[in-house]
């Protein structure tokens, strides 16, 4: 408060003093004020990994033992569970006599099974009591086991006084096992009159299995098809590229299959396509077109997963050609067939949670050449800040440890993307490739120094700009004729400063 008072008093007295000595002054103006300021804009070191991380968000970056960088794009598709694919239907077996020996192949499961571990369902024994009195019935299915012991069911029947009494006996099959390894199913019953213990036949007797769910089945399950869901892998590296041509020396597609079905399975690519900027949809050719069998666990490996790795590279696919057309999406549609040859001698198994999954991976080692690779990025910009500037001058210094040459252009655009002006008259070289040794490794950085004037007319032109589109055109060393490798320690540095003459506010 005191300071404010002091300032007011001081100002007032100065005014009084000068007014006492001078004629009346209505206005005070500063003349000739047009300072020139110089400020640094940036001093940035950009490693090749920084660049990849900003332009490759969908993938991962790794290095090999020589620190050669690799881009990895991966996806996964999985099959249905075994229990969802193969179901045991309801079964009904008539018993015309008190015993029945049935070949296991005649059981209407739909498959020639040798073993079933039940997880749920019902065993039903139905018959009519036509003997007008109470009965004692015992049922035995030799192959139906509980903890390894055959099961005998004792069924007392109380006659209801009717001439024909329908009896339905049912029992839970959970945790029971049906062992058909002997090739036969033996079913027998012993029905006796309660009054005389005389053995009698049951009318309309039948055995049924209903709502069967299994934990494990073994046997010949036939030829089963699996349709895997269509999926895709996005490749961000080329997302911002326009009109580029980049050839990778050693792209690799890896297909890794994990299988817990105990049957041979063959996988086939119904479609393996790449969406490219340059050529639209392109088909990737490989052995997957004709189908590839993958490994499966044996009967002694129940519960385990068997792995299969299939690798495709430039020598056995057209992937190198595909990549050179800047794909931004890989689409894959697989199908699989269990027991593709439908061999009845193959005894396999399924668990209720058996499944196979396919990991699809695209690996791009950064060993490449490009005679044109264009990247664009748009950043927000408020051109109104140029209103205070009379003229400006950028200074740009670059120090490049990458084996690339790059031209740069800045497009100042309005909110609709209409170009209002450009920083350079023509795209201007800002990065010069580092010097390479015989192995293609950069041994000496390339450097550039650039003075970039901005005239007053250009400043006026770009003042309405709302965004800057930065376009970089990149070629690898020797004008893209030589493949170069990018190592994790590569980086480039650029320094930029601005010298601006401000406008006289008057």
């Amino acid at each position, binding site marked *: *408060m*005191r*300071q*404010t008072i*002091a*300032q007011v*008093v*001081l100002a007032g*007295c*100065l005014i009084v*003093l*000068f007014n006492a*000595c*001078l*004629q*009346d*002054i*209505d*206005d*005070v*103006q*500063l*003349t*000739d*004020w047009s*300072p*020139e*300021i*110089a*400020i*640094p*804009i*940036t*001093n*940035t070191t*950009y490693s090749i990994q*920084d660049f990849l991380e*900003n332009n490759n968000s969908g993938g991962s970056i790794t290095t090999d033992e020589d620190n050669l960088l690799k881009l990895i794009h991966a996806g996964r598709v999985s099959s249905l569970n075994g229990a969802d694919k193969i179901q045991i239907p309801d079964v009904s077996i008539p018993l015309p006599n008190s015993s029945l020996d049935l070949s296991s192949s005649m059981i209407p499961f739909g498959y020639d099974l040798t073993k079933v571990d039940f997880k749920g369902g019902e065993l039903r024994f139905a018959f009519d009591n036509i003997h007008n009195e109470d009965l004692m019935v015992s049922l035995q299915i030799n192959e139906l086991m509980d903890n390894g012991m055959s099961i005998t069911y004792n069924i007392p029947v109380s006659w209801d006084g009717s001439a024909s009494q329908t009896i339905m006996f049912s029992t839970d099959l959970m945790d029971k096992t049906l062992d058909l390894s002997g090739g036969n199913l033996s079913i027998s019953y012993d029905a006796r009159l309660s009054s005389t213990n005389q053995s009698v036949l049951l009318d309309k007797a039948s055995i049924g299995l209903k709502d069967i769910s299994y934990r494990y089945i073994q046997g010949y399950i036939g030829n089963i098809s699996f349709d895997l869901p269509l999926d895709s892998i996005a490749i961000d590296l080329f997302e911002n590229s326009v009109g580029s041509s980049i050839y990778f020396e050693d792209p690799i597609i890896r297909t890794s299959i994990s299988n817990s079905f105990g049957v041979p399975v063959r996988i086939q690519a119904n479609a393996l396509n790449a969406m490219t900027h340059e050529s639209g949809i392109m088909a990737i050719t490989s052995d997957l077109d004709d189908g590839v069998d993958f490994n499966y666990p044996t009967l002694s490996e129940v519960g385990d997963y068997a792995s299969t790795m299939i690798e495709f590279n430039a020598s056995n696919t057209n992937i190198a050609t595909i990549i050179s057309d800047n794909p931004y999406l890989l689409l894959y549609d697989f199908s699989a067939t269990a027991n593709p040859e439908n061999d009845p001698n193959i005894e396999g198994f399924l668990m209720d949670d058996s499944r196979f999954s396919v990991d699809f991976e695209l690996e791009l080692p950064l060993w490449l050449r490009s005679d044109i690779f264009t990247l664009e*990025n748009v*950043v927000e910009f408020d051109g109104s800040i140029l209103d205070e500037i009379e003229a400006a001058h950028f*200074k*740009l*210094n670059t120090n490049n440890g990458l084996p690339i040459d790059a031209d740069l252009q800045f497009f100042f655009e309005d909110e609709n993307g209409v170009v209002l002006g450009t920083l350079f008259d023509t795209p201007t070289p800002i990065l010069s490739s580092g010097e390479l040794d015989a192995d293609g490794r950069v041994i000496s950085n390339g450097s550039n120094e650039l003075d970039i004037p901005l005239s007053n007319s250009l400043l006026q032109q770009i003042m309405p700009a709302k965004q800057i589109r930065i376009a970089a055109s990149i070629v690898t060393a020797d004008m893209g004729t030589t493949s170069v490798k990018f190592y994790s320690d590569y980086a480039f540095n*650029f*320094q*930029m*400063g*601005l*010298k*601006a*003459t*401000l406008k006289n506010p008057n």
Partner: protein
Amino acid sequence: MQRYILFVLLFVSSLGFAQQDLSLHFMHNIAQSNFTNPSSFNRYKVNVSLPSFYSGFYHSAFTPADVVDIQGTTMFVSLDDMVNQLKEEGNILQTNLHFDPIAISFMLPKLQFSLNYGVRVNSHIQYPKGLFSLLWEGNGTNLGETINIAPSFDIMAFHEIGLGVAVEIQENLSVGGRLRYLSGIATTYTDASEVSIHTNPEFYQLTATTNYRQLASGITYDNGNGVDFGGLSALFGSNTGMAIDLGATYRLLDQKLKLQASILDLGAITWDDNLNAWESQGSFTFEGLDLKDVLEEDGEDFENLGDTLQQVFNIEEVSTSSFKTSLGGKYYLSGIFTPVKGLHLGALLYGESYRGSLYPAFALSAKKDLGKIFSAGLVYSMREKAFTNLGANLMLRLGGVQLFALTDNLIPIFNPLNTQNFNFRVGLNVAVGKKEKKVN
């Protein structure tokens, strides 16, 4: 109330820019001339000096007329002209205010004793050309150069009680001295003044270096609200010091020629009460923003630039122990020749030291006594970049009362925009008991 009075004094001093008045040295007919040479004897046996005021200003660089052009009712200020007039090694803005409420002198045979009390407010501001050239021209014209922008502010207010004695050793030789007790009221003193900015021509990286320290006593920086002056210290407070003035006068040519030499303000004050210190130390180089962060959507933006630069010049309040400020020193070497009775022609070589530098001035005087009741004189003086200073002095004696007024530069009265220095002194003495008059 005391704070207000102190501020008014300082405020007035900021108006009446001053250097030590040269005209006073030639007014041997008033007691106050003894302030410039303690060996100078009064003409009257008893002298009581009633309140007198002195205010002075000096600016070593431009005059307002150098930078101002008035057209109609519009004042055009050309800071470009102002910057061109500034010196690289530094520019001085100096003010002085002296208030002498009372002084007494009395004479015995061949002895003169004096006692005085006064309040002094002196300010000395030194600023580099770089401070204004940076603001006005920008740093783009000084690539590769290191620009110093640090001003120094030395302001000091103190009481003084002086006890002087002049002794006539021989008929033609007198010597004198004054011992002054100093009691500090308030001060602010720049102990280190280095603030520099370097713009590297490589890509205009900015390096700011500060080593700035401002000490104060009796002044508190009120957390951004400005400066808060403490109360007027008691006359015998904790901030004390001593100063000594020495002088000699020699007459020859049948006493028509008087040669004088004096050294004044040899002393210092030790400030020990209500101490404050502020400093800024550090070095920071700004090379721009990291473009990686700018290109990322959640990265930093250019608004952080201002915050970053502010950190370099951040002033922190720190603790300090007692410190000492020197009064500097003033040197007079003069000769006054009286060819005929009542006409006195003089020449003065003056020097003032400050922070190890000597600031000289030269003056020529012609004064005419018209009987016993009136004297008038003109003084032409020159100092650095100020060559057109024409001063005047008047004394009117009515009965035992002397009225006097003097200035080293009349021109600002008529042309205030065209001056680098101005001062004035007015006062009133009661002087009785005229002693046997010497020629001058």
